[in-house]
């Protein structure tokens, strides 16, 4: 029984972590129709900045704020000086879909290189702001700590806030319109380029949040979030790429599947489970669980 409870709790924690990344990826997709592979690099970079802030100020919360803000700035800069020129030059053919993917992959490599140059290759660790010891429930210590709870709270909060932004505000409407149909949006007076930069800024900020919530449970080094990128992307696709709720749902499903598979069936299923779950979902719903057919077109 304890095995089961532990599995459920650790799944919740893993799912929350994947959700951090899948939210950021869905954000970029919804506002710019690009899958941003550099997200992992941006998040690690902002976490390194956060690490420096922790060393200087000793406060995790200041570092968190710093990471989020720098994430937003870096995201905006990348869009303005990097993605925009690419979109201007690449207009037709399947290269339209591929160019941004490939470019963000290149960007990922560059960011990781820069991190290596500046901070070196040894790993660091960031201490969590609240206790990482498990809660005591009826005498036993469970595999869920105050920090895990904090992550879950932040993830839910981010999801709600961002969903409200997209669904209920004018800015959100502008973001969605610019992504879905840039020409028409432009005709209605929306400054598409500016709006898109805003989208990247928001995604970058959420990536900054992701890094600062993930690293305290792990270690910080340039490739620290590579695995998270893969699982975050898979989670986002499972959830349908269209809604933030879907991103979180997809992440939870992935977290639970992987944890239960490795606990009860075999430890070797760690990576294959992701693929199997993804294929099963897409076979039944090719647009993901909460995606809709009309928005599937790239």
């Amino acid at each position, binding site marked *: 029984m304890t095995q089961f409870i532990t599995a459920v709790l650790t799944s919740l924690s893993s799912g929350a972590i994947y959700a951090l990344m899948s939210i950021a990826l869905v954000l970029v997709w919804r506002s710019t129709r690009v899958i941003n592979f550099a997200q992992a690099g941006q998040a690690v970079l902002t976490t390194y900045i956060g690490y420096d802030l922790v060393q200087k100020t000793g406060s995790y919360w200041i570092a968190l704020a710093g990471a989020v803000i720098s994430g937003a700035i870096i995201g905006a800069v990348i869009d303005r000086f990097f993605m925009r020129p690419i979109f201007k030059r690449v207009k*037709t*053919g399947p290269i339209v879909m591929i160019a941004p993917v490939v470019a963000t992959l290149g960007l990922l490599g560059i960011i990781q290189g820069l991190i290596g140059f500046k901070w070196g290759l040894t790993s660091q660790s960031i201490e969590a702001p609240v206790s990482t010891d498990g809660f005591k429930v009826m005498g036993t210590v469970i595999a869920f700590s105050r920090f895990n709870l904090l992550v879950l709270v932040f993830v839910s909060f981010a999801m709600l806030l961002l969903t409200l932004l997209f669904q209920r505000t004018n800015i959100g409407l502008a973001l969605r319109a610019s992504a879905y149909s840039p020409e028409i949006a432009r005709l209605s007076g929306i400054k598409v380029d500016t709006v898109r930069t805003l989208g990247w800024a928001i995604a970058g900020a959420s990536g900054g949040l992701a890094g600062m919530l993930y690293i305290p449970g792990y270690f910080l080094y340039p490739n620290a979030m590579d695995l998270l990128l893969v699982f975050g992307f898979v989670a986002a696709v499972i959830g349908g790429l269209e809604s933030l709720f879907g991103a979180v749902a997809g992440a939870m499903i992935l977290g639970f599947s992987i944890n239960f598979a490795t606990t009860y069936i075999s430890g070797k299923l760690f990576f294959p489970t992701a693929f199997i779950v993804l294929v099963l979902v897409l076979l039944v719903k090719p647009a993901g669980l909460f995606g809709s057919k009309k928005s599937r077109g790239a």
Partner: protein
Amino acid sequence: MLKVTQSKKRLVLFIAFGWALLILSNQVGDLKLYQGSFVATYALAITSIILLTGYSGQLSLGHSALMAVGAYAGALSIFNAGLNPIVSLIIAVLAAGIFGLILGVIAARLSGPYLAGTTLALAVSLPTLANQFSILGAEEGIVFDVGPAPARFGEDFSQYKWFFWISSLAALIMVWFIANLLSSRYGRTFKALRDNSIAAELSGINVGRVKVMAFALSSGVAGLSGALLVMLISGVSPSAFPLSLSFALLTGAVVTGLYNLKGVILGGLVLVAIPEIADSLVSRIGGSEGFTTTLPGFLVSALLILAVVFTPNGPGHLIKRKHHKQKVL
């Protein structure tokens, strides 16, 4: 009349190139032969990507997995079944092709990021399957030994020259075959699909079937390149096909032009040359450990970005723009 001349020209070109490589292989040292083998292998892998993405418009991030299927199939047929190396290469193509067929059926229903995500998950999880079945050798992997060159070539015939001959020949044959295919009716069908799938469907093309066929073909080619790759490192193991390989191949394909096969050799060269250039740069500049080890990756990424920004349609179009007036494609 024109068609026959066209493919005849191509055949002559390929044969001539093959002879040139043969003569060349006797002039250069082991290192260049070793690197040349990698160039041939990567060129072949890039061909498979161009076929799938450039010609049929499906973006796959999982080519490393397809190469792995071919590689393991080839290794098993030599090691466990004791078959001739040439037969094993053919088996590699078939096994990967069949796998690609199945995958293509799944993939045909997906588009854009969904396909990308699925192939990404595949690329990450397939190599770890080797840990599941002991017959696949787990982390250590299976030996892929094509054996030494035949005795009649003499004792001094280096193993690396033999690798070069095998990989170049295999690559030449396969690329020639694909080039022929693409300039035929099938190639036009693929292109129609890529440019406008709705229009293609309306003109009677069975979009689903064509997509699947493209996937299967591309996988077969990838499988061959995978088998050749593990020949060069004398064995297949899960770590031979990391995700970064998929990304590197995509880089090569974009840098040399996604839309036609002309630049595949250049793409292969680039993939082999960049780490070399980074290496020599690093030994000249020196620097901290952090700098020297991250520089090659950095250079590849920088090159990729430059290529995408300045020549998204490949350098061939750059040359074209200089000499001709811009024609609407």
